[in-house]
């Protein structure tokens, strides 16, 4: 029952929106899919089979017959090597990608045939939340085993959650568990591990009690850093001075695959885990991961079928590969990323409105925000492949079963805003009105705004020149682009408020609007990076939303907060990122979830080709 609250992510509308921006790809992808109806159907069967595990435990088998499968079930992928094999210490996308396929937590997220995220029980079989919304009781699968044959127990989860909060370890993802009672104090080095309210009930049951209701806790609990660990092996390795962090032979695995070979910064081999509880639905026998640095080499490997799935970094191949998508060689998957790029305005009190003295004025910020043509930006700098942002929270982020973006609409596309954006004279009038309010004399033509950059790539230079030109055309304002030679001098400039705005972004960590909207709460930990917007009404709305467990109420509160934030132009969103995946069309049943692994390939298979 409870599962429904976690899952049911309605991405379908989002994906079609994202695709609408680039018409040709949509048709290409569809054609490729339609040309291969039979295997498409069987791919769905596999998905359902693995998702229905909790209802028909063990009974579900794949409906694939031998002649649909290629003889060799080997998948070849490009990857970036992992800094560490420790789930608690996961740092970047590459650790999430690989470790999520060799280890397993409470849940596993797949995408269905429509690209909609579906959360399935994995290590857990069910969970309950107490009436006061504070105590979570997790029931674990009793047939889950580690690759050395040991059962996966409640103790393994509790060990992991406590270790994740260990102040001496200073793990980056500790914040996932800090809403547990006693967790925050322990993580910050002020409390004791004994006060952290995570308890083993029996071998296959454990509870976590929160300090205050946290609507996104269940989403955090399923993430990689919260996966179970084998403390006995870690302690043994550390006691004998062995390199547990990076020596894969010291690890055991409870996921669909195990790591069977590794050449540092070069390659890794995963093989099927025979101890995995759902091994009947794991069809791949081996996965080869290679480090391939050059994008042209990656392309050649794809074209010669030596790579099966590629997340594109060089967007020029989108046009180049259209013919291969059209003739059915490749499938092209556009997958929403939980990422938004925006302009941060210098609203810190200490900054006094930035070098121009104008940034604390909402009208000035609004005029600047509306001066940018987001469609043009997308076409010029993102090959038209991103989604122009008219709100802050990216596509795909949900509250309960409702996708936030489609519920909240597009604040920056309101009629009023659209009229302003289309009328430079009105926009300039708004800007000058703001100048007067801020007590800055003269006209827009007298104003010089300052942006600071350290990234000196051609792309970034072009983008800043484009800002300059847009501001000159629409507002008649001059933009001064201050280039710093490196990040640390840039940070100094930022921390001494020598800017009016700069380009910033956020890649979400878990599926909840608060992960994005929380960045603009007064004096939150990120305020110094995000411009320091401050509005007590906004703070109140976010606080209410974070305390509520009513999905509808939360949706409304988040929507109000976002509208307020963008009305006052506390931030100026520019675009949402979309990941471009290409796969050989014979690779079936791959998922591209929003969080965690980029590519969930544990139930994938290679069709006869």
């Amino acid at each position: 029952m409870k599962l429904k609250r976690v899952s049911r992510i309605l991405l379908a509308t989002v994906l079609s929106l994202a695709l609408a921006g680039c018409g040709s790809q949509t048709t290409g992808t569809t054609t490729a899919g339609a040309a291969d109806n039979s295997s498409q159907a069987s791919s769905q069967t596999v998905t359902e089979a693995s998702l229905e595990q909790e209802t028909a435990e063990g009974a579900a088998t794949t409906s694939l017959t031998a002649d649909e499968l290629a003889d060799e079930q080997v998948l070849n992928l490009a990857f970036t090597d992992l800094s560490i094999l420790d789930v608690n210490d996961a740092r970047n996308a590459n650790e999430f990608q690989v470790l999520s396929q060799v280890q397993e937590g409470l849940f596993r997220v797949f995408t269905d045939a429509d690209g909609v995220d579906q959360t399935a029980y994995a290590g857990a079989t069910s969970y309950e939340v107490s009436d006061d919304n504070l105590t979570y009781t997790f029931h674990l699968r009793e047939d889950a085993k580690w690759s050395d044959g040991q059962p996966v127990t409640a103790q393994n989860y509790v060990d992991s959650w406590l270790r994740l909060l260990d102040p001496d370890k200073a793990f980056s993802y500790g914040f996932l568990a800090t809403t547990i009672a006693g967790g925050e104090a322990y993580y910050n080095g002020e409390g004791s591990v004994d006060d952290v309210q995570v308890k083993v009930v029996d071998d296959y049951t454990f509870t976590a009690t929160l300090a205050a209701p946290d609507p996104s806790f269940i989403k955090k609990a399923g993430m990689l850093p919260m996966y179970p660990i084998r403390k006995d092996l870690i302690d043994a390795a550390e006691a004998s001075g062995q390199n547990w962090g990076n020596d894969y032979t010291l690890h055991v695995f409870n996921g669909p695959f195990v790591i069977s070979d590794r050449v540092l910064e070069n390659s890794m081999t995963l093989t099927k885990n025979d101890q995995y509880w759902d091994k009947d639905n794991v069809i791949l026998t081996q996965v080869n991961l290679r480090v391939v640095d050059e994008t042209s080499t990656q392309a050649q490997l794809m074209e010669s079928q030596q790579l099966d799935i590629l997340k594109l970094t060089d967007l020029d191949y989108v046009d180049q590969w259209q013919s291969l998508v059209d003739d059915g060689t490749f499938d092209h998957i556009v997958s929403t990323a939980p990422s938004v790029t925006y302009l941060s305005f210098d609203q810190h009190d200490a900054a006094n409105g930035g070098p121009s003295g104008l940034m604390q004025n909402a009208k000035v910020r609004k005029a600047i925000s509306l001066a940018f043509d987001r469609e043009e930006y997308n076409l010029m700098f993102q090959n038209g492949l991103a989604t122009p942002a008219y709100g802050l929270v990216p596509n795909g982020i949900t509250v309960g079963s409702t996708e936030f973006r489609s519920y909240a609409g597009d604040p920056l596309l309101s009629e009023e805003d659209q009229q302003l954006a289309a009328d430079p004279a009105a926009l300039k009038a708004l800007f000058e009105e703001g100048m007067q309010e801020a007590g800055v004399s003269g006209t827009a033509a007298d104003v010089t705004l300052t942006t600071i950059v350290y990234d000196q790539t051609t792309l970034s230079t072009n983008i800043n020149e484009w800002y300059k030109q847009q501001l000159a055309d629409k507002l008649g304002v001059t933009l001064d682009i201050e280039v710093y030679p490196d990040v640390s001098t840039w940070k100094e400039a930022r921390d001494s408020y020598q800017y009016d705005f700069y380009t910033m972004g956020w890649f979400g960590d878990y599926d909840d609007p608060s992960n994005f909207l929380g960045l603009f709460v007064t004096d939150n930990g990120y305020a110094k990076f995000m411009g320091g917007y401050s509005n007590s009404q906004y703070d109140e709305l976010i606080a209410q939303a974070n305390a509520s467990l009513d999905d509808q109420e939360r949706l409304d509160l988040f929507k109000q907060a976002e509208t307020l934030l963008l009305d006052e132009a506390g931030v100026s969103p520019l675009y949402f990122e979309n990941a471009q995946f290409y796969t050989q069309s014979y690779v079936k049943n791959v998922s591209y979830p929003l969080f965690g692994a980029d590519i969930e390939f544990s139930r994938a298979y290679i069709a006869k080709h």
Partner: protein
Amino acid sequence: MKVFRYLIKRLLIALITLYIIATATFFLLALTPGDALSARVEKLPDQVTERLYEKYGLDKPVMERYLITMKGLLHGDFGESIIYEGQTVQDIIAEKGPVSARLGLQQMILGVGVGLLLGILAAVKKGKFWDYFVVVLAILLISVPNLIFALLLQMVFAARLKWFPVIGWPSAGQWFSGWKYTVLPTLAGCFGYIAAYSRLLKASMLDVMNQDYVLTAESKGLTHREVILHHVLRNSMIPIITRLPMTVAMCITGSFFIESVFSIPGLGLYYVNAVAAQDVPIVMGETVIIAALYIFVVFITDILYTIVDPRIRISGGKR
């Protein structure tokens, strides 16, 4: 006795050189803005950031870190990687050194071999077509970066013609297997040697050919062929032989571009990535070990001089 004093002196100089290199590397890295943790702490609360810096000892003042590092170097303890937790420089060199060494040696043997043949050809046919051919070829090969060669070879012979694999390398620890994987990277990296050695040998041969004893040999009535083989070639080899040890030493450090293009698990790529990531212990360790190797090779080279060229003698400390 002279030789003994010479050796002591060389050893002292070597140690001082190593110390200067280590110190310079340390401070250059320390002066570089940012550090290995800056990307990781971007999203962390301040207290956690502080603890993370404490964990890696990066919270200490520069001079204290310098002393700790130097003390470690004295004991051969370079510390653990900050990026790949638990990995030591020794692990990494043991794993990746042989890969780069095999590739480098193959490139060298092919490149030097072809280069020498072309050098002889150019010297013998001085002023004729082949001479100009070799000169133009050498200029061409030396001015095109090997990244371009690597990408071109990969595109033509691997992707289009499918004669060789696009990327890859035989499994670690194997020196003679999987030659198919090594062909393109070997070719891509041998051109520099061809250019350098053909020009070096040609210049050296022309120099020798102007010597009086060659004139003598010719006037004795020896054939041109005999003069070249017995008198000119042997004596022209001195600069070649003295340069070879340096070339061998350079092999082991690997080539960033070629290893990157062909996805070869070598030292060159790893080293550059470590510098980019500011993984101080790894960069310090590799730099010192490679520098020590160079110094040793330079020493060998100096000894070699005295063996191949009797005109050079060790004169330890005499004024």
